[in-house]
């Protein structure tokens, strides 16, 4: 073997590396829109809508109304964060970066896994930030339930990581979050995240149960409210996860097909 011979081998895990996650995370944080959507807006909304005097004294389940709003905002933040994480693929496709990556050993499945990981990391940051702000501004909840709610808000946001990915492959736009941000706002109203469903009237409340935000919100609040709709909520989350995941897979396969 000559000295000039280079040993060439394929990377492990199809190119899924901590090094790439670290670099991508750095880039994600550099994007001001992402930071505002996922880290600034949710705590700001919490402070505006959840911290009035009445809310601090009003009890809902084991906590006060402020805590109830806090959980909703944690869900909202995690949702925005994971959606924008997933939707990164749209910018990358528009820039021709996805094509550039095909000139590396990175496997498409590893790329998607990295995007999902990033979405969940930024989702986690969002949930933690909202909850820390909540702890300083009057949210009152037993610690065990508090943690359970935060973890549920985060884990269930996987639905929206899949949603973001699906939309990212579907919409070849540089500003996909300008569409998805308001869309998530509407879905949040529709799913009873901002306003309790029983204030919306019977018909609307029934429709609401089929929208994707409903299940996540209901599940994340379950430790506090012990709501009777647990199985509906679980079913909602599972079905929407499958819908978005299959949608993302469908577009992803089309995108990476070598014609």
């Amino acid at each position, binding site marked *: 073997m000559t000295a000039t011979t280079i*040993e*060439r*081998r394929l*990377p492990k895990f199809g190119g899924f590396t901590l090094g*790439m996650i670290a*670099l991508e995370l*750095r880039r994600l944080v550099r994007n001001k829109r992402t930071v505002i959507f996922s880290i600034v807006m949710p705590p700001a909304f919490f402070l505006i809508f959840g911290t009035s005097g009445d809310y601090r004294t009003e009890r809902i389940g084991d906590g006060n109304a402020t805590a109830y709003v806090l959980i909703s905002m944690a869900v909202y933040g995690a949702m925005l964060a994971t959606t924008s994480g997933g939707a990164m693929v749209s910018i990358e496709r528009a820039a021709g*970066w996805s094509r550039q990556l095909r000139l*590396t050993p990175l496997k498409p499945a590893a790329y998607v896994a990295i995007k999902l990981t990033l979405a969940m990391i930024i989702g986690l940051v969002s949930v933690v930030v909202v909850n820390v702000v909540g702890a300083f501004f009057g949210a009152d909840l037993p610690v065990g339930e508090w943690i359970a709610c935060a973890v549920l808000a985060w884990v269930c946001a996987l639905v929206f990581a899949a949603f973001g990915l699906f939309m990212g492959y579907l919409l070849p736009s540089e500003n996909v979050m300008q569409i998805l941000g308001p869309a998530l706002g509407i879905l949040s109203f529709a799913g009873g995240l901002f306003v309790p469903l029983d204030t919306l009237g019977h018909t609307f409340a029934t429709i609401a149960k089929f929208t994707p935000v409903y299940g996540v919100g209901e599940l994340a609040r379950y430790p506090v409210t012990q709501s009777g709709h647990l199985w509906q909520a679980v079913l909602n989350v599972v079905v929407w996860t499958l819908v978005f995941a299959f949608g993302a897979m469908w577009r992803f396969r089309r995108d990476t097909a*070598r014609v």
Partner: protein
Amino acid sequence: MTLTAATDLAAAGTGQQAVNLDGVVKRFGTVTAVNGIDLRIRPGEVVALLGPNGAGKTTTVDMLLGLSQPTSGTVQVYGRAPQEAVALGLVSAVMQTGGLLKDYTVEETVRLTAVLFGKPRAAVGVALKRAGIADIADRLVGKCSGGQQQRLRFAMALLPDPELLILDEPTTGMDVGGRREFWDAIREDAERGRTVIFATHYLEEADAYADRVVLVRRGSIVADGTASEVKALAAGRTVRATLPDPERLDLTAIPGVETSEIRGDSLYLHGRDTDAIARYLLNQTDARDLEITSRNLEDAFLTLTADEETPA
């Protein structure tokens, strides 16, 4: 000993082709972009794929990189399927446009490439330096000029230390200075023995930087030789003549004809000894209205690569 890429590569020095295209055809619906290309490139050659826009250069490059697959025929790069060769870093490319993210810095972009190819951090600095962009390492890609971005693509392509480097219209949109700097960097690199294939529609680039020029026209190779051979091809003159049914003429019987073309009643014969061609036409055929024109390199290129007005 297990069979690794390295052992295969040892064979690369012992007669293996860098590129082997065998009867490659690529159709998009009813459009035939590449129409039967056979091409073998030896390790260490610097080859220009020269042709006008739409000749099938980029389609060929895409197939070499495994970005698309031929409709028929086979493509091999260092004896492997292109996708595999790309994943192993045997072949890399500088693409025409795109492929960069604005909110990465120059250094981060190259570092990401290093991470993907499993190269050490030190390789990043080397690649930046060789591409001549070490001084702008911390600049955001979005703030780089077109030429700087192109050198960044070059740095990324250098990272896996490929056996074969493919450049697709690498200097499109660059000014003269940027173009020269870019080619200086490429030339310096090619002197280390790397195989280079570059697609271009700039004749002077092919002339200045390639050992071998492959002229492509409408998806087929119309000329293949050293730059000086192509120049010799262009050194001759053209005899134009009018005659009825030029198709019936046995062109091989005419002395000195190198290329020919028939347009309706007009016959265009190209060769170095145009007097002999003219003499033959006047004495042996019904040809009339003879015109003899000389052509320069540019004309030769255009004649060889231009689309016929009425495709057969």
